[in-house]
């Protein structure tokens, strides 16, 4: 995994395609070669190919569907609480028919509280939190993803909080959505995200004395080679993979 410096094109005219191209080239290399294999020779002739990580999405307005209304209503609601929309929400992503607010962690409970209590928003139900581990995304390795539903307005919304691995603290949502109790315990158990203020943040799926957080990317899957009719099949995480 090497990161190439973007070619110097400061003098180039600032047309959109050139800017987009420069942004693309400044991203980290996600994989190289045609097949992503590292164990055997890639004979395709595409060994020097570098596939870069897609840039962090941030959708411009209009977001489409009910998303613009929702963002406006949340902005108004946050202002009443003395908070600017841009301060609380760092990015808005409207992708594949779903809306995501990337919330700064210090404002998570305020945003969630407004989303639940403001009649214009009315997100009564939280369907839990899901952790995601991005070891390559330095400074934002751990993400907590919340999915909210408004039964009154029949809308869905995703909140995403990202925190560094060195400081994996997220304020608990249990006071706003008590259903997050077990979900946060699960996310702590599997990812090591610490939910500050949770009433009893203990392991839920793994045994109490377990070491490590199994669903992080740096935690091995484990497994043993399997012998079948004389041939040995390596465990799944050691087989050839096409990334």
């Amino acid at each position, binding site marked *: 995994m090497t990161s190439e410096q973007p070619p110097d094109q400061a003098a180039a005219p600032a047309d959109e395609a050139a800017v987009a191209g420069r942004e693309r080239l400044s991203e980290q290399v996600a994989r190289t070669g045609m097949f992503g294999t590292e164990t055997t020779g890639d004979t395709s002739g595409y060994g020097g190919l570098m596939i870069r990580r897609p840039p962090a999405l941030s959708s411009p307005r209009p977001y489409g569907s009910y998303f613009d209304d929702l963002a406006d209503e949340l902005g108004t609601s946050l202002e009443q609480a003395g908070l600017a929309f841009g301060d609380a929400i760092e990015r808005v992503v409207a992708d594949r028919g779903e809306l*995501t607010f990337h919330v700064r962690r210090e404002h998570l409970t305020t945003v969630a509280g407004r989303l639940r209590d403001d009649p214009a928003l009315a997100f009564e*139900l939280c369907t839990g939190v899901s952790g*995601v581990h991005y070891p390559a995304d330095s400074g934002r390795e751990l993400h907590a993803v919340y*999915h909210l539903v408004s039964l009154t307005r029949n809308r869905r919304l995703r909140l995403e909080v990202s925190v560094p691995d060195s400081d994996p603290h997220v304020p608990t949502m249990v006071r706003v*959505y008590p*259903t997050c109790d077990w979900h946060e315990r699960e996310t702590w158990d599997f990812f090591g995200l610490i939910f500050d203020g949770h009433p009893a943040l203990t392991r839920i799926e793994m045994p109490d004395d377990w070491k490590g957080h*199994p669903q992080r990317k740096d935690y091995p899957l484990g497994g043993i080679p399997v012998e079948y009719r004389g041939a040995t099949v390596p465990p799944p995480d050691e087989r050839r993979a096409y990334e």
Partner: protein
Amino acid sequence: MTSRTEPETEGRVYNVGGQDWDEVVAAADEAGDRPGDERLIVNMGPQHPSTHGVLRLVLTLDAETVTELRPVIGYLHTGIEKNMEFRTWTQGVTFCTRMDYLSPLFNETAFCLATEQLLGITDRIPERATVIRVLMMELNRISSHLMAIATFGLELGATTVLLNGLREREKVLDLFELITGLRMNHAYIRPGGVSQDLPSGAIERIREFVGLMPALLGDMRKLLDANPVYLARTKNIAYLDLAGCMTLGVTGPVLRSTGLPWDLRKSQPYCGYETYEFDVPVQDTCDAYGRYLVRMDEMDQSLRIIAQCADRLAGHRQADNRVMVADAKIGWPAQLALGPDGLGNSPDHIKHIMGQSMEALIHHFKLVTEGFRVPAGQVYAAIESPRGELGCHAVSDGGTRPYRIHFRDPSFTNLQALPAMCEGGMVADVIAAVASTDPVMGGVDR
């Protein structure tokens, strides 16, 4: 045999081996342990027959009243989500079907809908595949609800209900075996469609089933609906109202027993549910009996949907029988067929790739071993499983394997509501409360 130890951290501990309750009481009296304190902490499970698998309930009892209940889970954790990160998107179905083993087809559909949404091919799934998915899901809803009601009966002491329920469920499993080849863990619904078309004669068998079931369900209702013992064990038991459901994230029949007609098939339709005619049954009793009635009524509605599916499938033009997306970069290259050594790739396909076209062989090999690439992004696909909202949060980094899959299993969330339903009630009602939420531990622990 009673033994007594005194570790510093836990106070005095009595180990009870059974049939020696008098010894324990005598020993406690002798030791002068908290005279007058009737509190008793009991571990129910993890191997208790009425906890639907390996669920452990730590009950604090004051005589027969439950003062505190703490569910303990994790005994069936198998790391399905982690395992899926090491397999292709198509292989993922084989794993997630084993989560909630009473509703495997819902797990598969949730995962496939998420994958298809990531791929952006939701609109290109063949009509026939979507109808088959709906058909299979509704059959599965019936088998799951039958199991819920059958075990509910058994746990309250009614073995007839269990035997009737399992007998009726067997009819659904026979249909599954005919269509998918397996009674459970089907891996039948795949990203892009379903693994194979219905076999000949399936529509007739389904219609026969639809004709047969109302009478059998009617028999069950005759046995239970007004049964005084059943009513005494379920009415006003395990009460949880709408505010409680919203707070604790409870969905499915438990939510609909509070009077709110929230069913994702109606409110946020997927798989073309908006084109079917059916009702959302509700009750307003908020108790175990209401949940039973909701499940019974839902089975009737499922039969209505199945009949409509059968009509649509029978009416399909013969030329339009694709059940996998037409995109050759995604759709599984081979159709399954029954050969002399069992179900496998069709002989025509083998002949084509082995004898006629090198490119077809390469294509087959690449797609099957490497899998297809899914554009980077994340989606959340939710469907209405028999137990509530089953959500699949899928994250892709652009590779051939999921970057992260998380299932929001309804049983997991609904179990959280047990203390709210049981505390302050009788210990015997704990069993009714557990059964009325219908948790499946395979789904809870994943």
